[in-house]
């Protein structure tokens, strides 16, 4: 099951479910690595950052109760990454300063870094949304959407492949797009 910021699934993460851990790791590792690069960590430090964030997240998730008033999950995750990166740099031995050197504060990060983060987050969000869609949607509807929208096949051909009416392909497209919008909205809040 895909890990998302939905409340019910955070319960599953807090249980230490192997499923949630693995999905979480696969999903957010690129984001953590990206953020580590923006914070000027070297390669080994970035790998370590991934582990630290994962541990920190799941450690705190045991006592974490999701509260929407606290803000969005993306900000929460960003903050955890930044804190762990700061801890990582603090633990550096004296005199061992990386060439990429001192980590800037969150506010000091260049605008391009935020844009990259946003783009990567959107991609992650869409991946999560599509994973979530698999559980909400009829397989035929999803296949129709995938072939018609994502792979760009003509509606008539999709209808032939799935043995449905061509009109249904358009209906599936509209239906899935509406569901995707709703899921993305839920995930991003």
């Amino acid at each position, binding site marked *: *099951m895909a890990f998302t910021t939905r409340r019910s699934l955070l319960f*599953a993460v807090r249980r230490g479910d192997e499923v949630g851990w693995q999905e979480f790791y696969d999903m957010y590792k690129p984001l953590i690595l990206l953020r580590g690069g923006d914070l000027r960590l070297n390669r080994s430090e970035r790998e370590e950052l991934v582990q630290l964030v994962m541990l920190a997240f799941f450690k705190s998730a045991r006592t974490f109760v999701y509260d929407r008033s606290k803000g969005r999950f993306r900000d929460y995750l960003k903050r955890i990454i930044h804190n762990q990166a700061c801890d990582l740099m603090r633990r550096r031995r004296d005199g061992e300063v990386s060439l990429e050197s001192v980590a800037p504060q969150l506010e000091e990060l260049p605008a391009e870094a935020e844009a990259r983060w946003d783009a990567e987050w959107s991609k992650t969000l869409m991946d999560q949304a599509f994973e979530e869609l698999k*559980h909400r949607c009829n*397989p035929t509807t999803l*296949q129709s959407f995938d*072939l018609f929208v994502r*792979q760009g096949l003509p509606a008539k051909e999709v209808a032939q*492949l*799935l043995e449905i009416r061509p009109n249904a392909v358009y209906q599936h497209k509209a239906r899935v797009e509406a569901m995707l919008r709703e899921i993305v909205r839920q995930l991003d809040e």
Partner: protein
Amino acid sequence: MNDFPVEITSYRPIVRCGRGAYGTVWLVENGLGHRYALKIVEKDRLGDFWERELSGLKTYQRRVDRTKSHRNLIAIHHVELCDNFFYYTMDCADDAGGGDGYVPDTLAERIRRNGPLPWLDMLEIFSAMLEALDVLQSVGVVHRDIKPDNILFVAGVPKLGDIGLISSLSRTLSIIGTTAFVPPEILTGQKKTPDCGCDLYALGKTLYCAFSGNDAGEFPLVPPEALRRSYGRRFNKLVKRCCAETPGMRIRTTDEFRRLLYGRFAWQLDWRRLLHWTVWVLLLPPRLLVLGWRLRYCRLLPVLLFCIWLYGMMTRYTWLRQYGYGYRYVSPWHWPLMKQSMLEWYLPWYLPLAGYDHYDFIKKDARWVKRFGEHWWVTRKSYLSSKNPYIRDAIFATIEVGGPNEKGAVKAVKRLPFIAPGIEQSTPLRDEYLHELVFSGLDDRKLRADGDVEWRDGVMILSASRHGRLKYAKELPLRSDIQMSLDTEMFSGRIEFILTTADYIPPYGQKKPPDILLKRQVRFALNSDGRTLTFAEAIYRPQDAAEEDVRRFGAPKVGSLPAAGGFHRFRIVSVTEGIRVYCDDKLIWGTQLAFYGGYFELRYSGTGLRVGEFSIYDAKLVQPDETRTSRLRIP
């Protein structure tokens, strides 16, 4: 090799095959040189889980391996408990690595190497897995870890392996197995007790991997290439049924899975049976040869085989024609149809129909031109056109033609739609028609008149009547030329020339002779006042047609004809180009309706009508190079 425990002395390690959450698997060899897969389960590493593995092994040994050993289930050969671990040996998979070291031949390995599997391989593998699941279900256990990695090929036979997670149906267990192959209700904890449905779910996901080449996590997305073939679409439907989100929508039994897996090939459920019959059919010709040789009739054998082949070809095509065109009540032995099938099959370009007229029939879709005489069967769905310029623009109809005298013939079921004739005044008869005399005379019993008849100087005088009738009692030839001499100068009243055909429609699905008559009638009427002949009416009337459905032709362009001058020679020609009426060899009226055979009668109302001559000719078409015989004469 250093990792191999020293406590295991009975087996020599060859290579380590894999390492999983539940232990390490080695390829080993015993003292006799037999190879096995040896799985080591470390107690410390697994905590309490090793007991579960051992329990599964015991269950499998107790319920399956001893009592119901099956060719599609992996066999456990030896189990031994040590201090820190326990191990067991089982069948080892074939080597798929070639010369690059041992790689177990599993379904996952095959998918990884070759992508989606051929459908016949899939049928073989999954029917074997279904048999294995049947065995497991019959003893009340579930596998719980079916996936492509756990389907092994031992000596080419697919076997369900990794039985470490096997448990009895009644046990409540936490989530184990590979998550993509575990039903969602188990993952979410809504259901605690695994059942056979979980195995079918996992098998469905495995089928998904096999036919799409994707990972199980990508379900239900399928590449379009996998759906281009019909079996791909069938597998797609099956997978969607197996792995539906709602448990109630899923396939529940192996039989249902098997039926959907095979689709229309469900009768071939037993692969060995299919193989048996395939080999049997392939070996039949050499067997027959051997038999023929032994019986010393080997010279006749080729003839016999040829006859069988010929009959097969004839009846096959006959049946195809019947079912294609809807003639379901005709036996495959129906000789005219067989004959026609053969002619069409071997002589599609020309049919020497001497003595018959021909049409050019153009099949609707195939643009398939053939020549037929009208006594030949043509399809109900044929669209008729002709190279004849006089009817080319008029006839475009759905017709069916059958000879009136042919036994079992099917005749016009759907009539020619009427199209107003655009016949030209100068339309001549075709030169190819030769006319053979069928009937001549006035006093023959075939010619019957209502009312009193007088004879004077060889002329038949029909008495004055309001409903007078002179009828030719016999059926007309298919193409007829009816000639008569009528004295219109002495007649005042109305004359009608009536042609009637009777088409037979047999009841649907019955072979018995036709008992329904469908009559059609063309009536051409003239008025005479002793000085001129004028057109009265010309109508076409199908049987039981309402008055508004009666089609009325307009007046011909010929205008009035002089009635004076005594006898006039009338000709009513009914040929395949249509029906024409001539007066003194001058065309006075025509239609492009084609009648085949039928009956003729002359009706009149008025003063006495004098008939000087009456004869009927059979209008026959001959090929231009045909020698004319003395029996034929051109009128």
